[in-house]
């Protein structure tokens, strides 16, 4: 993925797979605690996000993320990309 490409869609894809929820549900209610967001799934997401975007994330920041958009912002900061495009 190029630096300029917004990470939203790929982050959403990863969360869809990790949480087993539909993209529509995650867009409708982006609060992670609503879903099965626990130590196992958050680490699974961490591994996939780091592999997908070739970045290293701070685990504290990952755990501080409340919503899908927070995660997108976290990845955007790490990749230096533009996060303003919402997940779609």
């Amino acid at each position, binding site marked *: 993925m190029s630096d300029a490409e917004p990470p939203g869609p790929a982050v959403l894809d990863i969360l869809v*797979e990790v949480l087993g929820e539909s993209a529509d549900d995650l867009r409708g209610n982006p609060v992670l605690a609503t879903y099965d967001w626990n*130590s196992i799934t958050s*680490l*699974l997401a*961490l*591994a*996939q996000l780091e*592999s997908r975007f070739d970045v290293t994330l701070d*685990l504290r920041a990952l755990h501080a993320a409340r919503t899908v958009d927070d995660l997108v912002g976290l990845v955007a900061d790490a990749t230096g990309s533009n996060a303003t495009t919402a997940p779609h």
Partner: protein
Amino acid sequence: MPHTDLLAEVRAAVADGRTPGPLTRAALATTDDPMLMRRAGRVLAGLAPPADGPDDLRPLRVAVLATCTVGPLEHLLHATLLGAGARPTVELGEYGAFELTLATPGRTAADLVVCLLDESYFLPARWSAVDVDAIDAHLERRLADLSGLVAANLDPAGATFVLHTVPMPADLRDSLVSLRARAAVSRLWHRLNAGLLALAEEHPQVVVVDLVSALADSPHPARDERLHRYADLPYTDGALLVLAHQVRRVAQARLGTSRKVLALDLDNTLWGGVVGEVGAAGVQVAGLYPGNCYQELQRAAGRLRDQGVVLVLASKNDPDVVTAALTDHPDVLLRPDAFSVVAVGWGAKAANLRDAARSLGLAEQAFVFMDDSEFERGAVAAELPEVAVVSAAGDPAHLVRSLLRTGWFDVTDLTDTDLRRPALYRSRTRRGDFAGGFGSSRDYLMALDIEVSAEPVTAFTVARVAQLAARTNQFNLTGRRFDEATTAAMSADPGHLVASFSVSDRFGDEGIVGAVWVECGERVWRVLNAVLSCRVLGRGVELAMVGWLAGQASAAGATAVEATFVPSGRNGVAAGFLGDAGFAGPTNDDGADDNNGGGGHSLALDGTRPGPPSWIRLLERSGV
């Protein structure tokens, strides 16, 4: 197979309720992308056995007991073990209960118990950097604890335990500022790992894989400190995939799904250059790079041959040119007699490999094919998907690793038959040539001077008999696969008889090719299973086996031998065997017994004892 295709195929197969095909399984055996394997494994955890029809996969119950968090190892095992031809069920031990579980034998019912170990088990919670002796004493004590716990769980008919060497934690190494003390602690840690490896020599049911050296060859770091501190997960996904592949190799060896044949291309695989263009003197096969790479591949293939792997030459060339080069080139290591089958010509390689499989009497799934040509690899993969394909393309420096890294040929122990297999199969192809000169198969069989030797299993033959049980699919009467420990236990039990059968003829000694497992009742002997290698099918050896067994039963006072044929979808060759051997009993259309395992066929021992076919000389030794 591209990664996107692999995951899509896995998802489609699970959704359709079908077993992923051989190409997908081979990809799972070779893929080293932890994220892809983790995702594939999650999907495969939902793979159900076929509702009807035969199952291509072998069931395998796996238990994972860990001194730490298991993490993604469960899913990685689902992916890698499917690559071994297994249908695994994976049961996880309770977190924090590693020793408790081991201290309570019988808490896990598994074929394979994988122990995921980390330094927390061996190091004291608090250790002093200035008291190396205390660390030494603790490591020794904990190794002894583990050894005792594992030994207490080793039921002769039970699971195989898989342990691994443990990386020395960087914190331990780098906390010591004294170079001398650091070297001393490293030595202690190496001794700990040597002690772990020694457990495999002490107990036949223990396999110890060298995770430390495998990680040294891996591009993946062993540890992610965040995961270690947060989740007690001392290994990264990549490191756990390395371990999962090592477990796959153990499973392959245990299940008998490892390969037996290596088919090799010549030009730009076993030597550099095209011999038809540059001549024998022009090929690169020694000296400096890149010639040394090709010679090393020949050396590696020769080592595999020394351990029982059958070599086949598969080359598109003029046969005379190839023979001259293999014979006369001073630096060629694999001479023509190293190959059990030489398939050199201009025909399609897939057809040549199919012919080679037929002449060797082996299934195509026993083959690995290595070639530099993408076209040839693609054609073989398309026509013979059961053949594992290895690329020899690209930099020849990688040839040896490309061949060896997957562990296609792993076995638990080398048997005498393994060591002699290449010569045995070379004899077999010569035997096929000899057959052309006879008017009938009976004349041919009479001329072979076949001898069958029968004897109860001994400590020297039990490994080969267990290997036959694991590997024989075609002539496998009931499909019950008794492993080495069970076979050994049965052979020591007066209520059972396990016998091995060896065959020799004018072309050579085939070694042990058949076995029977029998429950010896006072009046009735019941055959639990009988297997016969496909190498000797069609010679009436199975009838000689029955003749010997009937004699043993009769001598012990029994009045009948009972046996059951259980169809597996692959053992049709054995369907009519019991009737041919004189057993009476009703059968279904497919040859299966009506009464499902209760000894459907019976051979009355009423004074007339079935003898071996007239072309076989039976050499008898007493069984009970």
